[in-house]
């Protein structure tokens, strides 16, 4: 990539929009995932009994089971959100930037 092309892309408002949206979404989702996981780890470390409570009166299943499964599912849902937005918004935008930089 030469200097001229670099300047052209960097001053393209669409590029700025892409960088803004993509990094914003990426970091937001990453932080959500970290908060969910480390929140769970902290509960585990400091108050494990919270997760050992029965789900309802008389149940053998504890609160921790659906929460655990929920964390696995949340990871999948978060990746789904990212992929959907990336496919719908970021890819067309990237395509336009590539076209305009030629």
């Amino acid at each position: 990539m030469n200097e001229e092309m670099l300047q052209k892309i960097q001053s393209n408002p669409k590029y700025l929009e892409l960088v803004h949206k993509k990094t914003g979404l990426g970091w937001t989702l990453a932080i959500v995932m970290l908060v969910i996981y480390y929140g769970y780890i902290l509960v585990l470390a400091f108050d494990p009994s919270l997760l050992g409570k029965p789900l309802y009166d008389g149940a053998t299943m504890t609160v921790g089971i659906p929460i655990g499964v929920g964390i696995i599912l949340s990871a999948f849902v978060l990746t789904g959100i990212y992929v959907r937005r990336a496919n719908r918004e970021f890819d067309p935008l990237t395509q336009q930037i590539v076209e305009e930089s030629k």
Partner: protein
Amino acid sequence: MRQLKLQLAAGIAALAPALCWAAGAIEGDVKRQPTNWHAVIMFFLFVALTLGVTYWAARRTKSAKDFYAAGGGITGFQNGLAIAGDYMSAASFLGISALVFDKGYDGLIYSMGFLVGWPIILFLVAERLRNLGKYTFADVASYRLGQMPVRSFAALSTLVVVSIYLIAQMVGAGKLIQLLFGMSYGSAVLLVGVLMVCYVLFGGMLATTWVQIIKAVLLLSGATFMAIMVLATVGFSPEVMFERAVAAHSKGVAIMAPGKADPIDSISLGLALMFGTAGLPHILMRFFTVADAKEARKSVFFATGFIGYFYILTFIIGFGAIMLVLNQPGMMETVTKGGKEVHQLVGGSNMAAIHLANAVGGDIFLGFISAVAFATILAVVAGLALSGASAVSHDLYASVIKHGHANETDEIRVSKITTVVLGVVAIVLGLVFEKQNIAFMVGLAFSIAASANFPVLFLSMFWRGLTTRGAVVGGLVGLLTAVVLIVLGPTVWVEVLKHEHAVFPYKNPAIFSMTLAFLVTWLVSVLDTSRQAAEEKAKFDAQYVRAMTGIGASGASKH
């Protein structure tokens, strides 16, 4: 206070080295079992199929791009399966089931730790990696930095991670095959080594990927069948399954709740799992087998889905084993351990999933699951060998020794020679380390990946201020700290070297070694006022634009 400390220590022992227990799944004294013909036949069918695939791949593997990156023609879905395959190792399958079988709820904790790294890789690493790199993660780390020093460092740390991981897998394979097939340890290690070399040597990345895909499909369908059969016995009510498991288990209702754990060790473990994944060379290499960033993104999406699904299944399998295998006639035996009589599963608790296969599907299904468990190791070692070979041929030979002017034929030849050497080394080390505690090696591999590879990779993509000096010094500090702290920690200092107290109290060093690597990298980079450093910083913008848009990335054009 002392009481509390003891309790915590017990908690750590229960919770600490996710990876260590995973490897622990297939270690320890193993009694050779009578030959299991169903398993042997299934296994040879698998080998025949994968060698067929290798033959097919060999005819398509001509250029370096074919050899390292399967020609870039793997789809996102296929790559997702292959990544999931790399992740769902025998240790992970047998180990998680065994842990749930022994401890109940604590098993799920590890499943999550293994999984949550994937979204992070997708959000921050995968697409940029694909846009910047060609064959190895060193391509990305050295994109705007000094090729020689950064690639040498990356090749070194790749080889360290790969060899440690390989030893663990080889020893595990030997132990597993003794249990499952009734072969001797030595012939098992030899067989694994020879097959691994065949896959990589002749079929390159294309064969390695397909072996991994086939194995992933077999493992996912086998585990699904098992989970459905378990749920069928309880009328598809998880509550009934948990009730019966609690009734059967000696720990009773305690298996439904997590045990106590040390906060520092837990967090440190979480870091190693999460960021270690993003630094494992054989996993990162998979992002170069797809056509572009979009396919890389899809790969992670599918991989997360498959891995998450699999880990949810292992939970049903673990509790199902408590319900259907524990205390069943013919599946338990009394053995003498350290002078005490212990009532345990035939072959140890790591065999929980295998016995469950027998309970729900009879001999043939037992054979199927045994063969899949072993096939898993073959597929993983092939991936490891390929990433080691790439580090030597692409990073050391072509880029450092030949300064980027190697011809492709020579580069591939160097890869193939390295593969054979790695195969021989893996067999020899597998034999030498037979009696060794392999638990710490897997933990070590993840900790090094998180402390040496990840900080350099991450900062090279996100931080303008990174310089060559910073990357190399910081990466080496992370590598050394991880190794030293593991040696001084309880896993090696107490369990292997038999000292009374560990010098370093935690089993998982990542929280310290990773932080230190980041700090040193930052400090050295900031203090680096050389002209070269200024040039490297100036190149960041162009790198960033390419990482974002993929302009100039390989894929569309020839490299």
